[in-house]
């Protein structure tokens, strides 16, 4: 047992995890009158978990507003969710999130959160998603400032290392900060510590040695410690530990926290080859926003978990600019040398591809008629010959955004234990329980909708329980 401070701290609600869901829970519980502490494992500068890398919240709405254009109905939102998440999704919880999302922007504004105007969105999501002005870190700054104003206690650099449970109820969390353990007792707890994608050991258990080549796009603090503690304590899980959201990121990205900028959007404009200079998937299968999240796992299944996106000068300016400059060369052979690919093989692959291209009228905005014929795998849209120097190449790695394995919850956000009974004073919110609603796949802004709606439910439930 870890040594415990003599001095014990007692609160009504302990919120474990200081991202979007945690802060939504903390603010809600505080407004309900509870004494609240937020335990954040990151130092202040990096607070907010993966929420600091987010940008928008998917939001059901009946008509145009300052934030969103047109309308987005409950049924449309639910069907968008179910389409990617599959039949195992808990539709009742999904509907709860969708309905709850409608009131989120107004609630968020009460805490100083600002939104973009929808007129100039870059991602064509102005109808479905409300964009935070300045992005997720600005959002988290607003929430933390509001928390301070309302008298919520926040401790940074503090990781939950153990839980004290009795009779299926939360009693206390043992929190390690500055090398010392302290016991935080509370009438109820909200678990909001995200996924486990930055726990490299856990990833290795699942993916083997391949995991060493994964890049973690988000915070290095999502170690899944609390998730594991809860699972060990008999909480029911949802989702598959192998399911994660992963995109193709630049192989030169930092191991952690590279966020949005390391992704590469040019894959559908050219070809993608593995380390043997062979193509392995249809780069033009569908619109990039719909397909970019499959490329992380596609790259992960290639030898040494590396691939290369190769485009020519015709691709200039047609995708979001990259943060790292491409390798550039005036011949395919020279590019291959720079990328450390077998030169003859890359030339052969490009030649074969170029021969298979059937000329059409290129239009990146529609599923155009530029395709290959007689090549495996085919490229079914936007196929143009790679024949105009300079040629550019980007190295790609799987970049994990988040994991889906989580804690099963009920509609009151209470964690469901082994026997099927909910733990009365243990709630969960955010990525740690998002698998109830989104088991796999991805639609933009759904995670923030789940975190905000369930954060508020969890905060309310925890405060109510603590008041009893």
């Amino acid at each position, binding site marked *: 047992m870890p040594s415990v401070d003599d001095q014990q701290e007692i609160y009504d609600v302990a919120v474990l995890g200081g991202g979007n869901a945690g802060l939504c829970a903390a603010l809600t519980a505080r407004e309900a009158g509870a004494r609240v502490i937020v335990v954040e494992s990151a130092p202040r*500068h*990096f607070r907010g978990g993966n929420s*600091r*890398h987010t*940008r928008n919240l998917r939001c059901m709405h009946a008509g145009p507003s300052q934030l969103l254009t047109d309308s987005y109905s409950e049924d449309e939102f639910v069907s968008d969710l179910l389409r990617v998440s599959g039949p195992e999704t808990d539709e009742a919880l999904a509907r709860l999130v969708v309905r709850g999302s409608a009131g989120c922007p107004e609630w968020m504004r009460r805490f100083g959160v*600002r939104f*973009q*105007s929808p007129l*100039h969105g*870059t991602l064509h999501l102005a109808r479905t998603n409300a964009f935070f*002005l*300045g*992005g*997720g*870190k*600005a959002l988290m*700054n607003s929430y*933390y*400032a509001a928390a*301070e104003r309302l008298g919520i206690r926040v401790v940074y650099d503090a990781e939950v290392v153990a839980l004290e449970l009795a009779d299926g109820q939360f009693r206390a969390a043992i929190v390690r900060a500055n090398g010392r353990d302290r016991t935080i007792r509370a009438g109820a707890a909200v678990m909001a510590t995200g996924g486990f994608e930055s726990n490299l050991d856990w990833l290795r258990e699942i993916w083997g040695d391949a995991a060493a080549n994964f890049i973690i796009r988000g915070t290095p603090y999502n170690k899944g410690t609390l998730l594991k503690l809860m699972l060990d304590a008999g909480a029911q899980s949802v989702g598959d530990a192998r399911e994660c959201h992963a995109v193709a990121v630049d192989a030169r990205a*930092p191991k952690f*926290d590279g*966020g*949005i*900028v*390391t992704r590469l959007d040019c894959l559908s404009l050219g070809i993608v080859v593995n380390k043997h200079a062979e193509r392995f998937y249809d780069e033009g299968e569908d619109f990039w926003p719909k397909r970019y999240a499959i490329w992380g796992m596609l790259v992960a299944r290639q030898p040494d978990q590396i691939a290369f996106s190769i485009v020519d000068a015709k691709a*200039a*300016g047609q995708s*979001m*600019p*990259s*943060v790292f400059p491409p390798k550039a060369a005036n011949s395919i052979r020279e590019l291959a040398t720079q990328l450390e690919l077998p030169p003859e093989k890359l030339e052969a692959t490009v030649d074969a591809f170029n021969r298979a291209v059937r000329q059409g009228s290129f239009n990146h905005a529609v599923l155009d008629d530029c395709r290959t014929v007689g090549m495996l795998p085919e490229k079914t849209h936007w196929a143009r010959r790679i024949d105009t120097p300079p040629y550019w190449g980007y190295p790609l790695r799987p970049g994990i955004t988040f994991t889906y394995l989580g804690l099963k919850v009920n509609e009151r956000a209470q964690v469901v234990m082994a026997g099927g009974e909910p733990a009365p004073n243990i709630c969960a919110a955010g990525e740690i329980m998002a698998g109830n609603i989104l088991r796999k796949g991805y639609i933009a802004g759904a995670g923030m909708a789940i975190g905000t709606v369930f954060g508020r439910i969890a905060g309310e439930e925890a405060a109510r329980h603590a008041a009893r």
Partner: protein
Amino acid sequence: MPHADPIAHGEHVMTVCNACRYCEQFCPVFPAMENRLSFAETDLVYLANLCHNCGECLYACQYAPPHEFGINVPRSMAEIRAHSYEAYCWPTFLSSAFRHHNLLTGLVLAAGLIAVMVGAVLIANEGVFPRPVGHGDFYGVLPHDVMVALFGGVGLFSVAVLWIGLSRFWRDVRGGEANSPTASDLARALGDVLTLRHLQGGGVDCPSAEDQRAPLRRWFHHCTLYGFLLCFASTSVAALYHLVFGWLAPYPYGSLPVLLGMAGGAGLLIGPAGLLMLRGRRDPALGDPGQRGLDESFIALLFITSLTGWLLLAFRERAVMSAVLVVHLGAVLALFVTLPYGKFVHGIYRTAALINYAMESRRTGRHGTR
């Protein structure tokens, strides 16, 4: 630590920003950035002078230090601005003036020019300080023609130097495009300048530190800018009175030049003092620490000019007037001389950048900011 090569660092910063774009609705810098795929020095100079140093994007940035990308747009832009002030300075050998400003150099320059003025007046009056013959007889101390020649000459020189810098800046920022701004471009840019609306980029007052917002910086800048413009108007009206109507100074307290001068003088006391105070309270991460002297010397000269102007008004009926007048004229001269070689140029380049932004955003059909 300042960046040894602000242009190279700025290119890194804008490359990261252009792949992110989360800040695109804070201010014009980001929409202007999105119009570009790469960032040459001229692009960076334009973006830097478009930046109002409001600070929003630093606190919103997921890549801000201590993140390894080390993105601090407000500081990077400030460094590039200082670099651009030197790059467009004429003559080139005086560009180092921008680096050597501080409160002391401002004061020494003012003192030096006051001494020169005193000397000149003494020489002109055979070693005796003139006693004004009548109340407020300024020209009895320094003849009108001498005053016009001195201040007109220095003023014209400063305007010419500013014009040279502006034309070079404009040529680079326009990248050789010949078309001129329309009336609506100019009106839009002028509106931006006169309202400082980009210091309310997110629809609220800009931050002076994380979670600290106040309208004071905008208000004090308004006091300074409008104070300066009112003083300029006062001088212009006085010149008109003198040259067209033959009405000689001093003008009565209720006259237009005096009223304009008093209003402007009030602005130039309150504004600079307020800005100096706020500078000390502002999160140092937002600025370039190397530019403290540049700011402070300009602020000091504006303040001294205004203060001595007030003293002149107060004592213009007394014998001490001649001494106060000479001191005031020395201060004004110091201000005039340093206009093209100090912080004043920020207003010229930023206005030009805003005009260019109005032209660009008209063409691309997007303004990006509220």
